[in-house]
């Protein structure tokens, strides 16, 4: 866990290893606890928990590994999910519900329903995705906090 100092922001970055299903869910669980301690509205906590859980699973299933960085500001939260490849060939297709490139083995574990990215988009207030084949994908999600 690394953190950068900034005034009234709280930031933490955590790594997700490729194929690490055993640890899946730990990051979103720790986000939930942290956000509840910060007094963030429970509806936002739940949306962020679902989005971060999907992101965590995606990193483990589809990528060569990556990291998640959450930054909490007094009025909004930014969650950046970054991986080191392989990148998405057709983002439009990947954003469609039910579309998945997950292997049979992964599906046997109950993942790979093709809902990951659409779920992340549905749960966040802003959603941006950029991807380059061979380089990796970056997703930035924003969540507004109502006072």
């Amino acid at each position, binding site marked *: *866990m690394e*953190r950068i*100092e900034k005034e*009234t*922001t*709280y930031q*933490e970055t955590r790594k997700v290893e490729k194929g690490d299903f055993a640890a899946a*869910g730990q990051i*979103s*669980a720790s986000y*939930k606890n*942290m956000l*509840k*301690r*910060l*007094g*963030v509205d*429970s*509806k936002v*906590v*739940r949306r962020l*928990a*679902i989005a971060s*859980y999907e992101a965590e699973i995606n990193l483990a299933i589809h990528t060569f590994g990556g990291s998640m960085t959450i930054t*909490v*500001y*007094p009025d909004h939260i930014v969650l950046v999910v970054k991986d080191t490849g392989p990148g998405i060939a057709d983002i439009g297709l990947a954003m469609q519900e039910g579309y998945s490139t997950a292997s049979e083995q992964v599906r046997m574990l109950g993942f790979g329903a093709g809902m990951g990215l659409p*779920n992340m988009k549905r749960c966040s207030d802003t959603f941006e995705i950029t991807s380059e084949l061979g380089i990796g994908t970056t997703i930035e999600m924003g969540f507004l*906090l109502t006072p």
Partner: protein
Amino acid sequence: MDKKQIYHSVKLEKDKCVGCTTCLKRCPMECIRVRNGKASILYELCIDCGVCVRICPHNAKVAQTDPINEIFRYKHRIALPAPTLYGQFRNVTSVDHVLSALLSLGFSDVFEVARAADIVSATMRELLKTTTARPLISSACPAVVALIQVRFPELLPNVANVLSPKEVAGKMAKEEYSREHNVPIEEIGAFFITPCPAKMASIHSGRSGYVDGAIAIQDIYGLLSSQLRQPVSEKIRKKRHASWQGVNWATYGGECASLHRSNTLSVDGIHNVIYALEEIENGKLDDLEFFEGSACEGGCVGGPLVFENAFVAQNTVRKLVERMREEDGDLPPALPAPRDDILTDPCAPRDTLKLSDNIAEAISMMERIDELTKTFKGLDCGSCGSPTCRTLAEDIVLGYAKEVDCVFKLKEKVEQLARQMVDLTNL
């Protein structure tokens, strides 16, 4: 809900507490601290699950319940026995013997909570048809409801707005008794025979006010077992009885089984329940129809205030249910109708987790907590009196503890001082 209005049953007997870390480490809410050599409870987080009552090796954690003499404050006294009570007596031949024994303790009448459970089941079956909340979460275990209020407020809309069987029993018992004997409701006291402190706490925090007190099963076990050989009274024989489905509520899964739905989940043990609620919160169990969580392992028969071992009691209840099932048939002859007068308001969150009301302040506190946590060894040994290194960091930031409460920090400080002394003498 105002924090101060919440009554808690779990208490500490200071003289017996030796300040060990047994309860500290096992509390699911991390709400126990050992300060000045004695345990103390952060009540704003406590859900009265009774884990500490069960595990304290020195019996210093106790559950406050009402003494049996309390019932004589009322002119008319009704016992509301939890079905768990039937599982306490290995050789009991019928429920009627237990009910008769209760009368001999001074109760004017008895009303089986299992009979109310039958009605709650019927109402819940109806609710499952009309509500869209999935999964619908059982409101029967008050420790689980309190857990949701504190840690999973977002799931509160999923909690069934149906009174728990003990409340329904209190309501029906008083209404029936008042009608039959033509006495005012105020003169009737209804007392729940409880397996756990959470039910005592929920009665005295007063969601409904139909139950006037709770008597621990273990407090009257001796008195009751000596009366079990007495013949069954005529009054009891003529009573309407609970079905085997209602009695089955004593063990975990009993409530789910009474709903006649296939996609239900029952989970026992407070730590397992927390895990399941996390899954529900993550949207992973949205297809589930109903979730029943029991704080105690095995369900209510595993409550901290029972006499008999939970597994033995489970077996006793199972045998009793089988016998009743043979008599009743698979579906109880007359399934009770659902009632809409046992619906209640949704419960409010207990907003006690947040560090500060001001989010900017909370953020900078969280920064300091992170900073401090990294300086500790991460052994979570509990010697400081906080359950984990992280909670110690939180306690320090909140002003309840000092860094040198950590034995390793203290050792560092002493070493530093010793070096300074040596340096001074070498001058």
